[in-house]
């Protein structure tokens, strides 16, 4: 998959994008009525995320996915607020989702249409372009990512790596300023992980991703270590990985 180099990508370049979490925490009501009070998923966090490449690492169930879901309004904070370029995720959900693209761990959840071409076209529907123009743009986009040959295949016939690249293409189609990826390399083999890393490195967008791949985390300028619903470390990758290893015992 080749990085895009057209002018459309330039338009998606972030101009000082910033996400601010002010005391943002997440709690859920327990299913068991006998439980004592709500369960804390994410403790109140104060963070400013403006670096171009940020990785979030931590154990399973530590709160990484919840933190990422806060960033595009998929999860709303129970306390505090999350602001994306000045937009509040609770109040301005639709505008936030246009600013922050989200890629799921399992791309099959994300692909709604039968074929990659139709799925990219679905993303482009919001632009309200005539049908032929939409199809031309979708084909162009798939070509620019080296996916044109898969355009008419069923999404169920694609490999895990191809699906992940298509899912990424459908999100990039609408040029979000910020890209959030939840464990994007979990289902990928080494070759596809390398391709994904190269692609992400070439994107103009601000990228925030969670991962168990410490090499991928190390390629980011800033790494957050999440542990037990809180931030255990926030800083450069080498020190973050050391901290994560220490936490894992």
């Amino acid at each position: 998959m080749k990085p895009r180099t057209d002018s459309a990508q330039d338009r998606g370049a972030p101009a000082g994008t910033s996400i601010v979490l002010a005391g943002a925490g997440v709690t859920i009501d327990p299913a068991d009525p006998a439980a004592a009070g709500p369960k804390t998923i994410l403790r109140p966090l104060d963070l400013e995320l403006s670096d171009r490449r940020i990785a979030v690492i931590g154990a399973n169930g530590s709160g990484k996915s919840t933190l990422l879901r806060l960033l595009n309004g998929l999860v709303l904070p129970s306390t505090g607020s999350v602001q994306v370029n000045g937009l509040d995720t609770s109040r301005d959900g639709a505008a936030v989702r246009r600013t922050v693209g989200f890629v799921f761990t399992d791309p099959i959840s994300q692909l709604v249409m039968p074929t990659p071409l139709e799925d990219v076209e679905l993303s482009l529907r919001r632009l309200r372009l005539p049908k032929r123009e939409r199809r031309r743009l979708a084909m162009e986009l798939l070509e620019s990512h080296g996916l044109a040959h898969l355009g008419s295949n069923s999404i169920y016939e694609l490999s895990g790596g191809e699906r992940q690249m298509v899912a990424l293409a459908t999100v990039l189609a609408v040029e979000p300023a910020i890209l959030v990826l939840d464990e994007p390399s979990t289902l990928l083999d080494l070759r596809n992980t390398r391709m994904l890393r190269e692609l992400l490195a070439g994107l103009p967008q601000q990228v925030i991703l969670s991962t168990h791949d410490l090499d991928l985390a190390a390629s980011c300028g800033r790494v957050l270590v999440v542990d037990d619903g809180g931030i255990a470390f926030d800083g450069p990758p080498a020190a973050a990985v050391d901290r994560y290893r220490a936490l894992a015992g």
Partner: protein
Amino acid sequence: MRGHAHLVAGYIPGRSPLHRWPLWLKACLLLATAVLCLASPAVSVAAGAAITTAVLLFVVAGHALAGLPWARLGRAVKLMWIFLVLIGAYQWWQHGGLVAWQVVGAIVATVLAANILTATTPVDELLDGLAAVVRPLERVGADPERFSLTVALMLRSIPFVIGAFSDVREAARARGLERNLLARSLPVVIATVGYARATGEALSARGLGDPDLPGDPGFPEDPDFPGS
């Protein structure tokens, strides 16, 4: 489980005349198929059976003209054969063989005609068509994009649920629970709810179905639906 989802209701790319026909023409032919099959028995039982037979042959010819695989036609019938047998047996018992043939033939013809339409029309084109049909209702608060997306999701979900039934049946058989109704139905419900949640989350993350924001462009004219 999701691997079954390509079995039915999907678009099959091609260059046949039916692939090139505009959606409105195919939709009108589908409507005509249903109306002829439903209304013809009002003339007489014999006329109903004769017209339904002719329509069914016409639809099968359309399937061939579209260059669609015969396996797809067989699959569409196979999926509803229990329903067809039950309804056919009841009609035979109540009204005789001719009526039973007319009723079963009408269902098969209409389903196959709908199958041809979805197989020769890209989903995106279907969405445009549905949105264009609903657009006049925008004045009374209808949201054409949301409506067409809902229908597309429904089309996508049907094969998933069929696949879920098939997989759960095999899993139950592997555990020797093929006669256990709970083991054959509860996992389907759980899988379907999980699928619906995942789809909803994915749509939400992509902002699909979100209301328009100030400054959003309007809908362009759809050449397939003049005046939309």
